[in-house]
């Protein structure tokens, strides 16, 4: 996948100003097309739980966006089937000035839930997040832990089809982690497919059955996870 990237390679102020002027008159120097991903031939099927591993900047997030249908390949084709749910940031869609209950609707609709689903699930969400009366207060009064709990409760109330995750997310204080940890694992196991970019060997062993290694925009490894799998980058 090729995208244009603004490059600037000078260090000193003097050459910076000169190069700025040069760039203005010779625009070819400003934009360089960079290959973010090359030669990706990949099939992810039902039941696959894929871990994307690789050094930072290798293209894991780009590949996730491609899988999610937000980026489009510049050459070749991508085919998707199923309801693909990206979960990169639990709190996307939250409006600080609205109440917790309103944010349940906002976040839920953003995830593609229908109004009926949200109405059916809202009590369960409030119970799980243990927010009680706070749910009717505006979000900016919540602590970040409370927001996380709410976000988590909303996110996990859907039945996932295919999940895309960019790093596992930590969900608040120890008490909640105990409760949420198992729920999170259940939530992910319920999915028909999972692709998660991660650095954690523990997580891979626990959740995934396939590991795809990415380096510099190319796939350098694609193996199944076995008992003695060790993470190599």
């Amino acid at each position, binding site marked *: 996948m090729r*995208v244009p990237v603004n490059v600037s390679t000078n260090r000193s102020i003097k050459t910076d100003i000169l190069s700025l002027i040069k760039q203005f008159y010779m625009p070819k120097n400003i934009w360089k097309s960079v290959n973010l991903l090359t030669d990706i031939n990949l099939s992810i099927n039902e039941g696959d739980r894929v871990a994307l591993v690789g050094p930072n900047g290798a293209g894991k997030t780009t590949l996730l*966006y491609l899988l*999610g*249908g*937000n*980026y*489009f390949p510049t050459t070749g084709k991508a085919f998707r089937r199923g309801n693909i749910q*990206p*979960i*990169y*940031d639990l709190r*996307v*869609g939250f*409006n600080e*000035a*609205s109440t917790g209950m*309103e944010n349940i*609707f*906002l976040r839920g*609709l*953003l*995830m*593609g839930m*229908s*109004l009926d689903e949200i109405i059916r699930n809202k009590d369960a969400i409030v119970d799980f997040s243990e927010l009680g009366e706070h749910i009717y207060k*505006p979000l900016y009064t919540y602590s970040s832990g409370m927001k996380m709990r709410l976000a988590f409760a909303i996110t996990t109330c859907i039945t996932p089809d295919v999940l895309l995750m960019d790093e596992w997310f930590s969900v608040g204080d120890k008490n909640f982690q105990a409760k949420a940890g198992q729920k999170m694992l259940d939530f992910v196991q319920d999915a028909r497919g999972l692709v998660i970019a991660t650095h954690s060997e523990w997580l891979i062993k626990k959740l995934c059955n396939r590991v795809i290694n990415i380096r510099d925009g190319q796939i350098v490894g694609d193996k199944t996870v076995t008992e003695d799998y060790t993470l190599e980058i």
Partner: protein
Amino acid sequence: MFFRHIYTAIRQYHYWILVSLLNIVSRYRQSFLGPLWISASIGIFIFTLGELYGRIWNLPSSDFVPYLAVGYILWHFMSGAISLGVTMFTSNKYYILQSKMALPAYSMKLIFEVFIIFLHNLVILVIVFAWYDIFPGIAGIFQFLIGVAIISVNMVWVMVLLGILGAAYRDVVELVSVFLRIGFLATPVIWKVGNEGRAAALGNYLLFNPFYHFFEITRNPLLGMPIHAINWYFVIGITIAGYMITWLIYDTTYKRIATWI
């Protein structure tokens, strides 16, 4: 794909209607005047400028103030939508990368938000009309609403087009705000079109101002003034041409917009 995406965006109405409503309501909650905060500033502008410019143009206030009121509220609606359109993709990066909203849905959300504010401002309009004892008649009101609907439909393509340009080039925001400022002065909002003297200053060049035509078809019915056929031709032409051009540009660029923001 542009029209297909528009269709998908329309079907996602639950989301964008709710978000716009909640945004406005949360702004009420944090304000001093509550729901009035939106209309109060418009009202002050209309009454003071109405009196002032009425004297400058030597027109009676009963003539000029309602004219200014309709024009200004419409301008507020249009310019609000247009200026929000330029940044609508760049400021919604995380939504675009994580949700399944079709791109035109972002413009519909913003148009709806601006429309709700417009509805608040209509209260001021009703007050002005009551003050000067003007009643436009059912037909007039109906035609006014049709005009507003036509403006809203056009805002979709304008905002998508500007959003794409704004995502590709970051200086488009500035350019658009300058054009809006010029547009406000070049369109008959605080001045009336007439046949001689200063009012006719622009002459036929006024026809090249797209805002002028939309204003004429929307404002005139409310003030009992006739709409000229030529305004309809321009409005229909602009709508069709706008959608065609945006269709072309959208279809060639929509796959890359996410990478620009």
